[in-house]
């Protein structure tokens, strides 16, 4: 490990670390734009100048381009280096518009920070600024080329990292232009990362345009609920409206990025149709009244149809806390069926996948990125887990062959990330044994349990895409507590009542069911049909845990206070009918925000358990899962096999 001295501080770093990163390690952050840890060094912006006093290279060098070596003595405060950095900022600012007040990036702009850090203050350049025409890049990303400082991060991410082909660099000299060949929506399923990766306001989130400044946001470390991969995110909300989602780095999971589905699926949280009050037969009610009604109706049901005619149903999207309490609830209610999955196939496939995985063979996305051969079995990653495709691309870029196995692995997914993949019919044809680090990726949507079982015999590590952010956790609990699928339960003909906890149930399964209770935050079909509705909080409105597809439990924190978004607040909450103020908080004092009387699903279950005489606790995770209570939401998460001991 090379040892060097930066500003009189001795620092030891792994071989290959750049001097820029070495300085960062001891708390010296030198401004830089083109360098990004995920994209590497290219030396284009020339901002990270340092003076090398001793060692194999001397003089002013770009610290991102110099690997740390023994004997280096480096100064970041040297006059010449500081002058170079301030000149680079001055050069960049010759063309950058002074439009920070109307720029969405303002407040979270690397250029703002580094302009201040770079020491350039007074404009000396007297020429005109160059201007460009912007492009329409679709509904999600706003393009403002005049702000561009030509760090080339966007094209390097878009083309090299993500394999997109419809955004590139055109022109030359001071007319370099980053955009599409012509106006049009960006095609890459990872295009939203341009917003995060652009150091200034060229690419901003169109869906959150002009809504808030960085310091206005309610933010917290969170986990994406839109597939089973568990990518780390930072949702950002203001005035009870989830405005945007940013990627959060987790090297073991998603790395630096997230997919567009995860980034731009914010609207369900703000949906005006969301259940906001407990409802009995379509009528708003208080929580106590609703609980009483529910228990009364369940009692009636048992009298009429006998014990065991009730099914308690969870799902792959219900957080671990709620899922873990379901068995106790089912027991106290005398339910005949405990279901974690709705349809037979999904339950079986998920159960098979989860029982197949163990601490040695379960591949994380980090493992996929480092793999040297990848087979994708019966799976469309674009549908079941887009970020996995980005991980596959990184392996492919490093030379790993990519095989698409079976008829349910469409070639389109490879094309979407410009991966040259080979299509084969059977996994047996894949020469996995020839490689040191092969990974087989399997879906659970279109595969069969038998096919998934076969993966255990493949000489490779396995990654399975599961139905839902906590499907792994649900499958574990189902195995432990003897859960069955709702479809199987209904097929027995015994199910006359259903308590659906954040479960999506097809309408057919509800036919002939006398009592439907739904605990949910989404306005699902079940909620619309339910006799009793208990509204729960969305994942951004609560603390919780998801266990992702590789068995990694990750904690997410409450981002925002639940409640109806202030923008578009219904008239019933206005201060008075003649003074409607849809864009301002109502000046009426209330205990909680309008529409904010929601409870996390686990809390609703716990309240019920308490009413049924069970022990009330503030900690839904108990027994083996107790170890997950103090899980660091900003850590890498923990795989469930590691807590077993």
């Amino acid at each position, binding site marked *: 490990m090379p040892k060097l001295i930066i500003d009189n501080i001795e620092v030891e770093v792994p071989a290959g670390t750049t001097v820029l990163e070495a300085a960062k390690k001891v708390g010296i952050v030198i401004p830089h734009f083109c360098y990004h840890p995920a994209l590497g060094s290219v030396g284009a912006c020339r901002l990270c100048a340092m003076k090398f006093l001793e060692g194999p290279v001397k003089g002013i060098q770009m610290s991102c381009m110099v690997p740390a070596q023994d004997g280096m003595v480096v100064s970041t405060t040297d006059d010449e280096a500081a002058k170079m950095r301030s000149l*680079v900022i001055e050069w*960049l600012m010759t063309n950058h518009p002074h439009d920070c007040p109307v720029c969405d990036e303002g407040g979270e702009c690397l250029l703002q920070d580094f302009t201040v850090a770079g020491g350039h203050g007074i404009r000396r350049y007297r*020429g005109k600024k160059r201007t460009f025409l912007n492009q329409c890049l679709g509904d999600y990303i706003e393009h403002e080329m005049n702000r561009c400082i030509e760090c080339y991060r966007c094209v390097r991410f878009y083309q090299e990292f993500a394999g997109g082909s419809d955004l590139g660099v055109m022109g030359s000299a001071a007319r370099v232009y980053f955009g599409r060949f012509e106006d049009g929506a960006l095609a890459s399923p990872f295009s939203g990362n341009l917003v995060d990766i652009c150091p200034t306001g060229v690419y901003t989130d169109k869906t959150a345009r002009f809504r808030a400044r960085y310091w206005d946001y309610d933010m917290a470390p969170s986990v994406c609920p839109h597939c089973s991969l568990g990518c780390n995110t930072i949702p950002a909300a203001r005035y009870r409206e989830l405005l945007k989602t940013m990627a959060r780095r987790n090297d073991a999971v998603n790395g630096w990025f997230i997919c567009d589905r995860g980034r731009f699926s914010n609207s369900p949280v703000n949906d005006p149709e969301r259940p906001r009050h407990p409802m009995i037969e379509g009528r708003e009610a208080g929580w106590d009244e609703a609980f009483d009604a529910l228990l009364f109706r369940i009692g009636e049901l048992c009298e009429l149809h006998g014990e065991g005619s009730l099914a308690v149903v969870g799902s792959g999207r219900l957080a671990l806390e709620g899922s873990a309490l379901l068995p106790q609830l089912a027991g106290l209610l005398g339910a005949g069926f405990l279901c974690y999955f709705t349809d037979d196939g999904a339950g079986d496939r998920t159960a098979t996948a989860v029982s197949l995985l163990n601490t040695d063979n379960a591949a994380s996305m980090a493992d996929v990125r480092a793999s040297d051969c990848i087979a994708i079995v019966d799976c469309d990653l674009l549908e079941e887990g887009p970020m996995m495709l980005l991980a596959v691309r990184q392996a492919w870029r490093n030379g790993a062959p990519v095989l698409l196995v079976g008829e349910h692995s469409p070639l389109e997914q490879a094309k979407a990330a410009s991966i040259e993949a080979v299509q084969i019919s059977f996994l047996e044809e894949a020469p996995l044994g020839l490689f040191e680090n092969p990974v087989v990726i399997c879906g659970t949507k279109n595969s069969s349990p038998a096919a998934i079982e076969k993966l255990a015999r493949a000489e490779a590590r396995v990654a399975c895409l599961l139905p839902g952010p906590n499907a792994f956790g649900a499958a574990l609990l189902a195995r432990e507590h003897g859960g069955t699928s709702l479809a199987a339960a209904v097929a027995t003909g015994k199910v006359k009542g259903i308590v659906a906890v954040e479960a999506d149930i097809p309408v057919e399964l509800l036919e002939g069911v006398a009592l439907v209770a739904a605990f949910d935050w989404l306005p699902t079909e079940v909620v619309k049909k339910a006799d009793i509705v208990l509204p729960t909080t969305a994942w951004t409105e609560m603390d919780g845990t998801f266990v992702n597809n590789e068995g990694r439990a990750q904690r997410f924190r409450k981002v925002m206070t639940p409640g109806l978004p202030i923008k578009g607040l219904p008239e019933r909450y206005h201060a008075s009918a003649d003074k409607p103020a849809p864009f301002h908080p109502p000046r009426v004092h209330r205990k909680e925000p309008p529409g904010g009387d929601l409870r996390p699903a686990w809390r609703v279950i716990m309240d019920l358990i308490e009413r049924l005489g069970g022990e009330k606790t503030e900690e839904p995770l108990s027994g083996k899962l107790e170890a997950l209570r103090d899980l660091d939401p900003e850590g890498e998460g923990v795989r469930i096999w590691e807590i077993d001991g």
Partner: protein
Amino acid sequence: MEQVLFRHNKPGRPVTFAEYQAEGGFAALKKGLKELSPLEVQQAVIDSGLRGRGGAGFPTGKKWSFVPRDLPGPRYLICNCDEMEPGTYKDRVLLEANPYSLVEGMILAGYAIGCEHAFIFIRRGYETAAMNLRRAIGEAREAGFLGRNILGSGFSMELDLHVSAGRYICGEETALMNALEGKRANPRSKPPFPAVKGLWGRPTVVNNVETLANVPSIITNGPAWFKGLAGIPEAAGMKLFCISGHVRNTVCVELPLGMTLGEIIDGPCGGMLQGKKFKACIPGGASTPFFTAEHWGVPMDFDAVAKAGSRLGTGGIVVFPENTCMVAATLNLTTFFARESCGWCTPCREGLPYVREILTRIEAGGGETEDVEILREHVKYLNYAFCALAPGAMGPVEGLLRLFEDEIREHVVKKRCPFKN
């Protein structure tokens, strides 16, 4: 005067394949491939003292020696014929008269470095030169000088001509390789150097047209003969000089390295135009700092010119007479460089238009005293750009500040260009 590269020139037309061979052409190829080992060819070039004629003057044989020989897989040779330095047209004149020396030199160079596929990267404007080369390559292939098992030596090489879209930056060897690969012509960072990791990631040598065209005569006549061609003992060989501007004859001539600037202008150029007095010149292409009358006696060789504060560069001399506004001349050059920046790094992309803006303003009478200081900052700090384009572009500006600062200040004080009425 003995001519090496221009030896085969015919008045008004290119030399033919038959003529070239009859005059001793391709004898070096036969000698090299049959009698010498690749290492011996390389050693001859090292011993000859041949330095790169594209501008940087790096010893050619040494460059070849950096190519790893035992590495399996292809090695490449590229001839850089992107000649776009303003004031430089020697490669065009050479190729329009004689494409065969280059082809022969490339086969010998390819033999020396063990290259199986060589490329000539030529700019689009050089249509006649490209036509000549295409014909020469075809004739050489037919004669068995290209292709498999050349002259029974066991050595095989293909040679392809690539007509590029052409930009100044393509003359930078790593940008050239990117362009040849079909990518944007942005330079690559060095290290790794092309000799280790070049075209398609393989060891690659990039040489200028004139450099490669000199190789056959070195093999035929020996390194000592080549060394002796120069006018001074420190130099080696002949050099094509192309002179333009206010001289009587604007010519491209082959002269011994080491002739003084005065000897070149008064000799083959026939002196200044009637009634004009020498004020300054660009000694070696647009990116070299000016020479003035005080440099009249500087021997035109790499080291001597560098010692005098400029660079021999390509040997493209542009002569300015006494009534030239040097601010305007520098502005003209800076405008070229600002336009030709590839746009990759900040100092070049944004710094050159900055310099252009200042010079434009000074020339138009709107200059300020502090502008001189800003120009000085640019001369110093553009050295830290990604490639050599921006430092080169600052050559004339550096010369302007060093030699003609009073002229700049006169612009600023008088608030107009003193050379305009």
